[in-house]
Structure formats: C-alpha cells, structure tokens
C-alpha cells in the first residue's frame, strides 16, 4: 500500500487508541459503534414494549412475567454505523511550509497525515469512509475511487494511496462550485473538514453552512503555520500571495499588530460560523503530529457527547 510519507508507522501506532463517535444518535446500518436512533431487543435497557408473537423469548422480562404482569420485551438502543467523510482543502495555500525549521513539511503534508489517520480510525470502527478534495479545479470533476464510501481494508489502501498523490491546486473554489462539490457528501455521518480557511468570510460561511447541512457531525480543522500565527517576519517584507500572486509591501513592526488583529477577527468569525451550525472548530499548528492534533480535538468532541448523555 502506498502511503503518504508523513503517515509513518509511529504516527499510526500513536493514533491507535483514538476513536470518533457521533455526538448525536444517528440512523445507519446496525452493528456499528455509534449511538443509533433505532431501538431493539438488547441488554442495555432503554424501554419496554408489549410482547408480540414472533419475538425472541430471550428478550422477555421474565421477572415481570413471574410476578404475573403482562409480558414485555426489553428494548435497548441499537448502535449504528455511519459514513466518515474527510474533505480536504487542496488549494494552493495548502503548500505553505509548516515552519522554517521544517521546510519540507507543508500544510498539505499535515492535512494528508490527518486524513489518513481519521480514515484508519473509521476503518477500525467499522464505519464507511471516503475523502473528497476541494479546490477550484477538481470540485466539479468525476468522483474517484477514494471519493466513494467503502468499508474494507482495500478501500482504505485506495484512499491512502490517493492521498499520497495529492498536489495542491491553484485557488479556493468559488461558492457555487463549492456547493456542487459538497453535494456529494452523505446526508448524515461524520465529516472532517481540513483547511486553512484563509478565504473571504462569505466563502467560509457558505462552506460551514453546506458542511453542516442535514444531520452531519462536522469537525472543522484549521491548519495554520507558526509564521502565520506569530507573524514571524522581520524588516521590510514583500508578501506574494501563493494563490493569487497579489503583492503587498509592509514593514513587519508596523504591520504586525494589524495583521494579528485581522487574523484573530477572521478566526473568531470562522469559529462562530461553525459553532452556530452545531459544528466543532479548532485551529491547530501544521508542525504538530496527527495524534497530537486529533487527540484533544476528539476528546473535546467526546466531552460534548457526554454532555448530551450519549456515553
């Protein structure tokens, strides 16, 4: 199996204890690990229903029957399988190096490793999984093998191999193209959106809306580099936009405060856009390893599940 070079055996081993369960009851195939909306006979008591001819006698409440009460069937919540979708921003900005110390490690490398890790988690949970790329060029293209949900190890191999061939394209897709591309997502399930979300506010707002539509559980991961967070530039700097080629000159000392304020404002708007739609949003550093990124994010997600009484 061809793997992204950043998805090392060590990284896979460290992510082996991670799991991602839906925050709300879902309707899906049985025999999964997510809380299902359907109930049926089971050990973990949920509710009773009157006995009907043909019911399995094992699920009768024999104690009630022994006391001479009506025969009742014990019902338990039925766990379900869902589809885990990973949506990867593959616009040109994803080619940004994660840090100066690691010029060969780009934001795209981090995203690939994250995607591969989440797909492996989904495979381990028995869920269906697939991933989609999101950029101006491929948004409307035909679906590849990795874009179709599957359950098997072979499908995992296909998805991971396709990840390793991923090259950032030129620009962030326009809103209408973005909507078309995300129509391919299942109506329900878990969605992990990986991007830098460096785009206009309407575009990111539309993205949050489309992703969170239906009954999807969405986690949006914003990957930023160290220089983007700290504005680690010195002296007079000419910034050349990686996607548009736009040039802006500024002095680092004069521009730093305004930049940090603009970035913080954009992140606040982005967070609000996702939280308003019930999605989780986290900003992480590209230089972090996949399990370092996913562990706190998924733990926070599980705490939200517990608050909903799903544990």
């Amino acid at each position, binding site marked *: 199996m061809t793997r992204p070079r950043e998805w090392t055996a060590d990284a896979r081993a460290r992510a082996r204890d991670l799991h991602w369960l839906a925050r709300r009851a879902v309707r899906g195939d049985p025999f999964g690990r997510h809380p299902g909306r359907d109930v049926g006979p089971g050990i973990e008591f949920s509710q009773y229903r009157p006995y009907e001819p043909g019911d399995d006698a094992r699920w009768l409440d024999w104690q009630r029957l022994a006391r001479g009460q009506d025969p009742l069937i014990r019902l338990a919540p039925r766990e379900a399988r869902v589809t885990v979708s990973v949506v990867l921003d593959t616009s*040109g*900005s994803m080619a*940004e*190096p994660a840090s*100066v*110390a690691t*010029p060969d490690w780009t934001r795209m490398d981090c995203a690939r490793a994250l995607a591969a890790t989440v797909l492996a988690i989904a495979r381990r949970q028995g869920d269906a999984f697939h991933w989609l790329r999101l950029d101006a060029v491929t948004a409307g293209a035909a679906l590849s093998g990795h874009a179709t949900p599957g359950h098997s190890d072979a499908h995992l191999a296909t998805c991971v191999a396709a990840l390793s061939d991923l090259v950032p394209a030129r620009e962030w897709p326009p809103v209408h193209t973005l909507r078309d591309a995300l129509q391919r997502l299942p109506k329900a399930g878990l969605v992990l959106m990986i991007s*830098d979300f*460096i785009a*206009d506010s309407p575009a990111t707002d539309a993205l949050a809306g489309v992703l969170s539509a239906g009954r999807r559980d969405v986690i949006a991961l914003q990957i930023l580099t160290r*220089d*983007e967070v700290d504005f*680690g*530039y*010195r*002296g*007079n*700097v*000419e*910034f*050349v*936009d*990686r*996607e*548009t080629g*736009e*040039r*802006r*000159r*500024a*002095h680092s*000392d*004069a*521009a730093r405060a*305004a*930049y940090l304020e*603009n*970035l913080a404002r*954009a992140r606040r708007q982005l967070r609000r856009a996702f939280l308003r739609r019930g999605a989780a949003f986290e900003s992480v550093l590209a230089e972090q390893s996949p399990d370092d990124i996913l562990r706190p994010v998924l733990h926070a997600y599980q705490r939200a599940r517990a608050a909903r009484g799903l544990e």
Partner: protein
Amino acid sequence: MTLGWPQALLGLLALALPLWIHLRRQRQIAQHVVSITRYVDTSPPPRRWQYIIEHPGLMVLRMALIAAVTLWLADLRLTDPKGGAGTTWTLVSPRTHAGRVAQLANDDRAFWLAPGRPRLSETRPASGPDAITTWDALWAADRAAPAAVQFVVVGPATVAEIGECRPVLSRPVRWIDAPVEPGNTGATPALRLALVADAARDRDARRVLAVVDAWRDAGLNVALTRETPDATPTIDRPTIWLSQQPVPAGIGTSDDAPVVITDTADESAPVFRLDRNGQVLARGRIAEGRRVLGVAGLRDDPAPGPLFELLFEREAWRPPPEAPIEPAFLAPAVDKTAAPPPTRSLAAPLVWLILLLAAAERALASATLTVRSAP
C-alpha cells in the same frame, strides 16, 4: 597601545560596522510567498529609509565582540592606585658596606638596587663602570612597584652613585646615607687625552677619534679635547700629536710632564711604539700610526700594561676622590604622572570574553538567519 592610538581609533571605528550592517539589512526588502496576504495591512507603507535597528540584540552582541577584540589588541590593563598601601621597599645600593647590608638582612622587603631587583639575601650584584647606575635601577623599581609603595634607598651619598640624568619618579624617595664597601668604589679611572692635529692630518685625527670611541664602548671613561697646533695651550694631559710642526718644548720632555703620542720621527719626543696588534712595545716612535689601538693593550690583566701605567697611574691624572653630597640631592624628582603604576593585563579574561561573545553571536545569528530564510 592606548585608546588614543590610530589603531585603537580604527578599532572603535569598527564598532560602526555592525551598525551599518544592521541598518543596511533593515533597508532590504525580503520577499515571502505566503497565504495570509489578505490579512496584511499595507498602511503605513514599508519603511525604507528610517533608521530602525533590526535585531538589536544581535547588533549589540556584535558590537560588544568588536569592542572586546579592540580592547584585547590594545592590551587593556587594570591599574590599582591603592596597590601596596602601607608597604615600604628598602632598596640597597650594591656599593653599600656589608655591615649596613647585614642590618637590613631580616627585612623581607629589602632589595638590591640592580636589574631584576634581587632580594637582599641574594648575592651582591656587580657594581662599577659596566653596572647600571643607581638612578637607573631606581627608575626601573619605580616602574615595577605598586603605586602606593614607599621607597627607602640605602647607599653611599656620593656623586658616583648617580647617573647623568636625574630621574623623575612617581613617588618620593627617602635616601639614607651608608658607607661604601672597601674596594668597591665604583669609580672609573678617567683617561684625559688631548689631540693636536692640523688640517692635513684630519684623516688620521678621525682614526684617533674612532680609537677613543672604541675605548668608550669598552667602558673606559675617556675625555678627549682637540687642540690646534698653531695655538697650542699648556697641555696638561697625554697628547696625541698629529702635526708636521715640532712638538713644543716642555711637553713630554720629562717624567712629570704629559706624555705625547705622536707618529713623527722626532726622536727627542717620548712616544709609544705600537706593533701591528696594537701592543705597546716601548717608548719610542709610533711605527703604525694609522692602526686602531687595541683596547686589550690598555687593560692588561693581572698587571696593568705599560700604556695603562703611563696613562692612569700618575697622581696628576687620577680622578678626584668621591665627594660626599647631601642625600637629599640624590633624591629624584617626583611627578606622579612620570611613571604609570604597574598594571595587570586583561588579555586572558578578554580572550575568554571574546570566545564567549563569538559563540553567542554565532548561535543568535544562526537562529536569526534561520528565521529570515523563511520562504
């Protein structure tokens, strides 16, 4: 080297180098391909010519490094104006009587007034015409002693004790008169010569002057006066007659009269006969007047040579006895700025400081350059 020297000033000028480098880099525009252009505010515009120091810490470190190297090259030294306070050095002339020296033997801060300032318990240094004079030794001790050390000099208060030039020391000197050690007068027998030469014999006269210089280099105290044969005064000293005119009557004609050394063939005049090696053979005529008279001929050992006897042993030509003088006269003049106090070199600490600063500069520069090389 002091900081007032051109080299030091150039070193100080080098401090401007880091300043120039950092200001120059400040004016450069680094290009970065990024994704966050939309968040960069272009107002105010980039500052091209404002003098804002980039990486001030690194620049200060570099300036400190250059300053340390400059101070190291300038041989920076520490002075201690209070050094040696309450301490007195007793400096004893090598001509001092042994009994007086014995009285000072227990003083652990008593030294011989001689090169190297040996302790009084060590062997008495040589004294005499070849030895360094008391004042010279005193001057050297003044240079070596801490600033607050007091000097007490014990020695004969005689003219022979002093040199030609009265020194100026940085501290007062208390002079204690002491008797002279017998047989160690230190006086140099003076050889006083007169040279009579006419213009035709000027070349030979210059040879004689060269001979006298050779004697002086050998340590002899020679005084030479030059006379002209036309107005020959009463010559009261050995005379070298280099003239075609006859030796005047009354000169060199008796044992008590001055000796005349000439190369004329006048048999009536007493002369010295020298062989080719400069050896004095006997009274007579100088056969080779153009040869340089060897100094060895004047310093026969153990017995003085004939020429030495003739020239030095006559009572009339012996130097006058040493005249005692007031010890206060021997005390050198005092000028606190005349001799800087001894200093302690800071070369070793500066080398360590330079190494430390260089390592810190490299570490900081590497970190800074790594940050700057962001794509």
